[in-house]
């Protein structure tokens, strides 16, 4: 698809880039190339910046996020869910959970949304090289971990063992299930669990913490955790009870944000700001493990 065939937006985008190069609050335009349905509430949107030059310059790190804009509905922070090495744009995986995200669900390929970013501290990718990585995800919490999984699978020489424990409500609710067989082929030990089994389900039923029992933790193990707050809390507790150092357990948090760049104050978590000091934190950096 040739996006220069959008006369109003390519011209606009260029003028905008000129006027707004230093303006952190001015969104860029991104066009939806493809929409992938993950489950009844979650879609993955493959996006490209309309401004070609900006698109060439654009890069992000696993764990970072974008502020997305929808007409009349403001902005919301959304994590990248695609490989950072992908050459054709980026993906955001979005759950229908509020007014803005409900409107996102109605978008079609070719539609333009506003985006600002990338923002936030990424996963410590250098520290993770060569380590045995244990990913633990619940529901859409797999989305921010996916760029890292893809990155590590693409660099097998610098990667130890890779394990993913992934829980969801029902078998229909798993996100990225189209990736599962490829990931397994590439060496990821993937184990799934569901809260409620369906008839055709013959895997384990129960919380994702149940899969942790007996998992071998050694000095080279690092855990990466994302999911609902309550899940994060119990997984962090259990991993530490199993002998993992808090510095080796990494999670990514969600907060209400307006600016995304450390100014608006909404995402204060004690002395830290989730948008710039996070959203990626080690378990040692989370002040209130009861309420991550």
């Amino acid at each position, binding site marked *: 698809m040739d996006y220069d065939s*959008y006369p*109003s*937006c390519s011209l*606009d*985008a260029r003028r*905008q880039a000129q*006027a*707004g190069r*230093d*303006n*952190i*609050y*001015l*969104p860029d*335009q991104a066009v939806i190339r493809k929409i992938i349905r993950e489950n009844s509430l979650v879609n993955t949107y493959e996006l490209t910046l309309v401004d070609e030059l900006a698109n060439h310059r654009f890069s992000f790190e696993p764990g970072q996020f974008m502020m997305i*804009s929808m*007409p*009349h*509905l*403001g*902005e*919301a922070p959304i994590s990248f869910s695609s490989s950072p090495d992908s050459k054709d744009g980026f993906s955001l995986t979005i759950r229908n*959970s*509020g*007014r*803005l*995200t409900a409107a996102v669900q109605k*978008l*079609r390929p*070719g*539609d*333009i*949304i*506003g985006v600002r970013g990338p923002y936030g501290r990424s996963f410590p990718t250098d520290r993770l090289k060569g380590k045995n990585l244990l990913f633990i995800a619940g529901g859409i919490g797999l989305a921010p971990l996916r760029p890292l999984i893809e990155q590590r699978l693409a660099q097998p020489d610098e990667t130890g063992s890779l394990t993913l424990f992934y829980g969801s409500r029902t078998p229909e609710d798993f996100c990225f299930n189209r990736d599962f067989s490829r990931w397994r082929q590439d060496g990821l030990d993937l184990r799934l669990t569901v809260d409620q089994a369906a008839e055709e389900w013959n895997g384990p039923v129960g919380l994702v913490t149940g899969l942790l029992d007996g998992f071998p933790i050694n000095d080279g193990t690092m855990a990466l955790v994302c999911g609902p*707050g309550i899940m994060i809390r119990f997984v962090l507790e259990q991993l530490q009870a199993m002998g993992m150092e808090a510095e080796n357990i990494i999670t990514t948090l*969600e*907060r*209400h944000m*307006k*600016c995304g*760049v*450390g*100014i*608006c*104050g*909404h995402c*204060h*978590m*004690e*002395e830290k700001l989730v948008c*710039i000091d996070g959203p990626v934190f080690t378990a040692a950096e989370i002040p209130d493990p009861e*309420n991550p």
Partner: protein
Amino acid sequence: MIETQTLHKDYLLPLLRKLGKQYRLVGPVRNRFGDTLYIEIPDLDRVDIDLKQQPQNSLKSFFFPQTEALSSYIVDTEPASPTQLYSFHPLLPENRPTLYFGVRSCDLFAVLYMDMIFLGGKHRDIYYEQRRRGAVFVTLGCNEPFANCFCNATKNGPFLEFGFDLQLTDLGPAKNSYFVEAGKANGLNILKKWTRFFTDATKEDRQFQYQAALEARGLFRQLVHVDLACQELEKGNEPEEVLADFSQRCQDCGGCTFICPTCTCFSITDHQAKDQGSGERIRSWDGCTFAGFTRMAGDHNPIDLRRHRIRKRFFHKLKHDVQKHGRPSCVGCGRCVDMCFGGVDIIRFINAITEAGDLGRDKHRGL
């Protein structure tokens, strides 16, 4: 070295008239209701400049307005083109070099704090920068602190040692002059350019200024142990009862955060125009005491409002900013004391956690 002069009070207005040709003027003006507020002064002869009372507002809104449009946007929803087109256009404020005069120490110090928030990080806020660039500050030291002031305890007043372009000190009725110190290049330029208004300061003037600054320190009516409160919080003591009681008394009005010169939190919302196809993205002041401040989609709120509604505000000022910037971000202006009808002000909070060193249990109940 700080350059010193004196300025006869009769020359203040003529000097401001001259400066008004070069700068937009903002200063404390008493209105017909008897309120003193910092306002923009288009005509010096038509306002009642009040250098006696504490202005009710701070300078916050001159750099960071209560509401401002950040950008406009256009949405093309023509039925002929089924795709949604959506573009943004910045709405930057113009840069107007402004001279702020009669500024109290606390209010200038708060601007220096705002500089850190809006300009000190990796990402610069160019809306703030547009308004801030070219600002000149002529401050007025406080010989007599006002009823709720405690800037001695927050260590940014009643007189400043840095940050001002010019600092004025009232040398008393006998002299009928201001002692004038130039702290920065812009202030020095004013002294040099308008020499005819100024007289060299004598040793006696300097002595008087020193004396006035010293005496002012003894005139505070509020005894507020800011350092002690910061230490208590730094130790990790959680004044749970105080927090819960204060949270209950908070009426969710946001007055304290709006009046506070160092409360800089904001929200950004879209305002749709009547034609449906366009709108503006508006930034407006927000307050962490509001119930919706941390609420996320799906109504999840990481803050327990019953216990911790006011925790973020007081901890941010007295603990987290001490950790991050080495000093509390309360400037001791005392404005939140008069503002809050629930008695949930920072003086009461500090007193509640410092009295008797027992985190103030029961002490604050007699509000």
